[in-house]
């Protein structure tokens, strides 16, 4: 059985890095216009400090977000721009657009048609017959499910070489919003996490000098937590500018839903999507065998915020160049773990995995 190769793994942050404290001030400034938001506004210092995030990324400059009032258009524009920079980075790594016969784009911040994948196909002159597929609404679980789709296109012989781009601008998505009513605490907490970023790689049968990881088989496990659809909500007001919310019951449900899976995980390298500090602390305390993996995820959260769809691939890239990569030699498995809206647990296991990272 031939192996599948992951090549040219790149990560790209939103173009503007803004300290978390400055983003908190911006939020305070916005809510000052709403007298009914005084109660939530007084929590901003606590919530933003408690997030443990030093800075977040915005693809569009804060002063541009302040000036513009075309929320829908600017969110799509920022997502497209960041996706282009991710694909630029893949091509700069040595890939050639004309050899890509598949493109999978995962994004929760882009909405509209033509699909983002088709816009990228056109701009970069990918073959006109290339399979172009978009996955939306998967939130932070986008990379696990996107990689499984790219793998299946390659493993079944549908495509020879598929580019996977995970891109979200949830930081811009939130920062550009004009608040017409007071957010809830759940919305404030979700808002203080969101950041812009992208990750991309190429999935292919043929080994290449740019290969960072190869494996024999991909296996995705997902589970919808029963009765949790309302816990991770994306609700649009009358102004049609959605705001993300994370329900506080997620914390109570997290360990019963996730800990058994992580505790029985087959040995290997684990890259975890960092949802938020409180959730990661709970997992680290309950699953001490994965404390190093949790710490690596939390370090990514501290430095970049919650990047959405690409975040698990950001953590994987760091893990492959860290001491944690030694776990591949011991277990031969690479696990990508992320939570998705639903709430959904997603775990992609690459079996027979070998690191080729320098």
């Amino acid at each position, binding site marked *: 059985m031939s192996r599948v190769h992951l090549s040219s793994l790149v990560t790209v942050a939103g173009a503007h890095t803004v300290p978390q404290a400055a983003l908190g001030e911006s939020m305070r400034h916005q809510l000052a216009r709403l007298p009914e938001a005084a*109660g939530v506004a*007084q*929590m901003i210092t*606590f919530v933003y400090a*408690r997030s443990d995030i030093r800075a977040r990324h915005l693809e569009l400059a804060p002063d541009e977000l302040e000036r513009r009032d075309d929320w829908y258009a600017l969110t799509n524009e920022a997502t497209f721009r960041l996706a282009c920079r991710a694909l630029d980075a893949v091509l700069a790594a040595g890939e050639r657009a004309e050899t890509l016969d598949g493109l999978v784009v995962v994004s929760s911040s882009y909405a509209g048609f033509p699909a983002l994948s088709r816009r990228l196909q056109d701009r970069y002159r990918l073959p006109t017959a290339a399979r172009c597929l978009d996955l939306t609404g998967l939130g932070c679980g986008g990379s696990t499910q996107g990689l499984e789709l790219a793998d299946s296109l390659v493993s079944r012989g549908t495509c020879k070489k598929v580019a996977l781009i995970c891109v979200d601008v949830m930081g811009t998505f939130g920062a550009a919003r004009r608040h017409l009513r007071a957010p809830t*605490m759940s919305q404030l*907490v979700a808002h203080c996490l969101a950041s812009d970023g992208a990750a991309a790689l190429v999935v292919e049968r043929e080994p290449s000098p740019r290969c960072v990881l190869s494996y024999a088989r991909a296996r995705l496990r997902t589970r919808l937590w029963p009765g949790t659809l309302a816990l991770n909500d994306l609700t649009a007001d009358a102004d049609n500018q959605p705001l993300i919310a994370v329900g506080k019951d997620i*914390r109570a449900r997290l360990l019963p839903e996730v800990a058994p899976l992580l505790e029985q995980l087959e040995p290997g390298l684990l890259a975890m999507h960092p949802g938020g500090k409180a959730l990661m*602390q709970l997992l680290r305390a309950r699953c001490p065998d994965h404390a190093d993996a949790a710490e690596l995820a939390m370090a990514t959260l501290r430095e970049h915020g919650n990047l959405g769809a690409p975040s698990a691939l950001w953590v994987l890239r760091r893990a492959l160049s860290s001491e944690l990569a030694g776990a591949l030699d011991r277990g031969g498995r690479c696990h990508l773990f992320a939570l998705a809206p639903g709430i959904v647990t997603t775990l992609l296991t690459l079996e027979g995995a070998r690191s080729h990272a320098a």
Partner: protein
Amino acid sequence: MQTINHTPALSSTTADRFLEPLSRFIIREFLHGDASLTPETPLLEWGVIDSMTIIDVIVFISEQLGVRVPDEEIRPDNFATLRALSRMLAALDDAARVRGAA
């Protein structure tokens, strides 16, 4: 802007007068009533209270303990333990009494 002097020498009796009602509230609301807390239990570190539930604590303090916590005091270090929280409330309460007597 109101500032609080968190005097380390604050007597334990004075500083601790909020310990019990706070402890009862937190155990009832966030620990399903079946746990115990010490004054030094790391409330944030252990996830007893977090960014989602902090507002419930503030409302309880305001409505049941009669202390208004100004925005600038709603910081993680003031909510790290029952002791830290109680000391902050005692300092705020004392300051309010002094202002009221003046």
